[in-house]
């Protein structure tokens, strides 16, 4: 700490909505660890499983029939970019979890393609998370996680699993793909929880 970098002035394009260590971008960068899966909404399914083995499923048309919301949220990627005021449409997890009975305090999101990410269940409820299927008024592009992705904007964006296919609720916390590869288990951008130990 306390090392000044000679000759560096910086751009200072700051914003009170920008968490520490982040910079603003107008673009929508893509970060994925593998090829983009192509999922047909005709066979798409979303499932919530619980610690008892119960399983609740929704087809695409069933999801579309649920009441949706249009959240406008800020996105913060652990690779340092933030994009403010993004417009989405999706079904609140509160709606999907309404009839799910679970003692579990933790959730793992699963994606088509095999990706996983974990978070406390409390971070998915009370209007904090959605299964999102439209971005900026258009169907969600596969590159950005279409046909549907998890949207949990108060955590770093790797928690907002693209190509989401389900949630598993459990009594124990089970670290996901990036969380086992050195990234922070919780990932709060305002506490700059990028990596283990942050």
């Amino acid at each position, binding site marked *: *700490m306390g*090392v*000044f*970098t*000679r*000759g*560096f*002035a*910086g*751009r*200072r394009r700051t914003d009170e909505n920008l968490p520490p*260590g982040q*910079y603003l*971008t107008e*673009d*929508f*960068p*893509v*970060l*994925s*660890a*593998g*090829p*983009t*899966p192509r999922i047909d909404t005709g066979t798409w399914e979303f499932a919530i499983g619980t610690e008892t083995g119960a399983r609740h499923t929704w087809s695409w048309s069933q999801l579309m029939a649920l009441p949706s919301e249009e959240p406008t949220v800020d996105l913060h990627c652990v*690779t*340092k970019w933030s994009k403010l005021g993004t417009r989405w449409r999706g079904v609140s997890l509160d709606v999907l979890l309404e009839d799910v009975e679970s003692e579990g305090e933790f959730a793992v999101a699963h994606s088509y*393609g*095999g990706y996983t990410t974990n978070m406390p269940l409390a971070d998915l409820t009370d209007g904090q998370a959605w299964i999102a299927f439209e971005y900026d008024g258009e169907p969600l*592009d596969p*590159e*950005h996680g279409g046909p549907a992705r998890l949207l949990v904007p108060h955590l770093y964006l790797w928690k907002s699993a693209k190509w989401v296919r389900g949630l598993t609720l459990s009594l124990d916390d089970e670290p996901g*793909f*990036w969380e*086992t*590869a*050195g990234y922070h288990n919780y990932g709060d951008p305002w506490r700059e929880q*990028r*990596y*283990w*130990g*942050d």
Partner: protein
Amino acid sequence: MTDLALRRLTWRVATVLEVRPEGAEARTLVLDVPDWPGHRPGQHVDVRLTAEDGYTAQRSYSIASAADGSTVELTVQALADGEVSSYLVGIAEPGDRFELRGPVGGYFTWDPEDPSPVLLVGGGSGLVPLMSMIRVRAAEGSRVPFRLIYSTRDPQTAFYPGELLRRVRDDHGLDVTLVYTRAVPEGWPRPPGRLDARTLTEAGWPADFAPSCFVCGPTGFVEVVANLLVAAGHAPQRVKTERFGPSR
């Protein structure tokens, strides 16, 4: 991966030892980072610059070098309006200091113990983490067959041209195919053009060989290449990608 997961990533002070131009728009910075814990090829670091009044800016950069004591090399492309890259490419000189932490990223890495053939496909500055893999392969005396397909705009912006030529000659089992998208060197047998399915087939590995594929570059480039590899029969989980920049 557990070694990485359990190690806290602390900020360290890096001192610039040397700078080298890397084509017309990029630069390699050779850094001395005391107590550097080492890294695996494909990992990256976070760089933090601090202005005199305490203002800071952070960005991530891939490591270009093989692990070698306290020396870490980054190759940085100057981006238009790049707050940190413009400093690293245009201003930093030997003796200058900034903060760095890492290594970060346990997925887009090559394991020298893995005997599978390797296909590296890099677009522009996406060559950097792949170059680290090529350098580690040589440093470890590995005989794992490597094929690199490197797509670059023109000869002026290509990274490491001399080293790649030398390695093709000296590193047995390394093949390199260059694809120029805008302008080709004099006497080049093909007109400029984008990397296509045919070149990937001819210069890559058959899917039956189940190679480890590493694709790194701008988002659009990686999307196209990863989709072509999957269409050619490569298992999606064998195709590891690292994307940068905006989508379209």
